[in-house]
């Protein structure tokens, strides 16, 4: 009887003790898990106590986290695109451009969320809830600096990779344009000089018979008019069909 009672009492004591110690810990862990889901991911666990009691702050943190994830996804895609371009596969440049525009949008959204969250924390601090807010603002600032540095590194690497890929076609365009200009200039000089030279020879021969000769300006009128027409036609072709300003930017 005494032995059974003792065993029963020990079992009850153990159960009560386990409940008293374990239940609050488990409840606390569960609560923190739910509440910290957003803050931990973005390094703001220091303001868990504020997030737990402030729905608006929780919403700001949630949006900040979502913006961070969206931005990082796009940055990963940019880095993958850099690897692909450096590997010699440009893929669809239109898609790369669309990805960069998405990155720009998400970067802007990220900046907005950072500003709003910081502003909210500053307001909360001025209202007396200062515990953890300064650290949280410092964390946001640090993460922003890291993000800026990562973005600058990736975009610089992307520009370098794209510039490298542009080198060959740019040489082709330059060679084609300047080669044809030079060739045309040589042909034009020979053709343009021929007419006044032939006319001058005729005048020289006539001068042997009479001094009443004239070397009329009309001899160059036709070549000059034809030359101007050809030059305008060339400019029109280069502007209308060759892209004009785009061509200048490419060969620059």
């Amino acid at each position, binding site marked *: 009887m005494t032995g059974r009672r003792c065993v029963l009492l020990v079992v009850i004591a153990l159960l009560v003790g386990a409940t008293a110690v374990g239940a609050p810990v488990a409840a606390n862990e569960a609560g923190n898990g739910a509440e910290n889901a957003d803050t931990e991911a973005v390094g703001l666990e220091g303001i868990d106590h504020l997030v737990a009691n402030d729905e608006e702050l929780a919403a700001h943190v949630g949006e900040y986290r979502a913006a961070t994830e969206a931005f990082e996804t796009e940055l990963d895609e940019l880095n993958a695109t850099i690897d692909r371009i450096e590997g010699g596969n440009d893929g669809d*440049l239109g898609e790369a451009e669309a990805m960069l525009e998405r990155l720009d949008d998400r970067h802007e959204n990220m900046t907005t969320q950072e500003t709003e969250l910081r502003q909210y924390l500053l307001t909360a601090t001025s209202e007396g809830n200062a515990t953890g807010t300064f650290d949280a603002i410092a964390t946001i600032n640090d993460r922003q600096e890291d993000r800026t540095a990562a973005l600058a590194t990736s975009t610089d690497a992307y520009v370098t990779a794209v510039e490298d890929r*542009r080198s060959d*076609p740019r040489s082709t*365009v330059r060679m084609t344009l300047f080669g044809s200009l030079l060739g045309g200039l040589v042909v034009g000089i020979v053709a*343009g000089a021929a007419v*006044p030279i032939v006319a001058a020879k005729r005048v020289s021969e006539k001068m042997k018979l009479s001094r009443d000769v004239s070397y009329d300006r009309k001899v160059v009128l036709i070549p000059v008019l034809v030359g101007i027409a*050809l030059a*305008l036609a060339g400019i029109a072709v280069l502007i209308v069909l060759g892209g004009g300003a785009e061509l200048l930017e*490419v060969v620059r």
Partner: protein
Amino acid sequence: MSSRWSRRIAVSVLSAVGIATLGATLAMAASDGSTISAAIDATELLRSTRSLSEQMVIIAGGGLLLGIGVGVVAAAGITYWLKNRRIERRLQ
């Protein structure tokens, strides 16, 4: 009294932090935006260059016409001026 001063100091510190943060944010936003813009510009330029490198006949034709035109005008004008001077000298 002391708590009022503490509150004023806290508000001042907060204002300074806020202004510094806003300035840093604006500066970072401006620099980040420009790096993405530079990447977009570089992509557009690569596309343009690729596209133009496939239009070699048009570029060569335009360049040739422009070169011939400029060459003809310059050579005809200069040659006429030189020959005219020589002929006038002989006639004098």
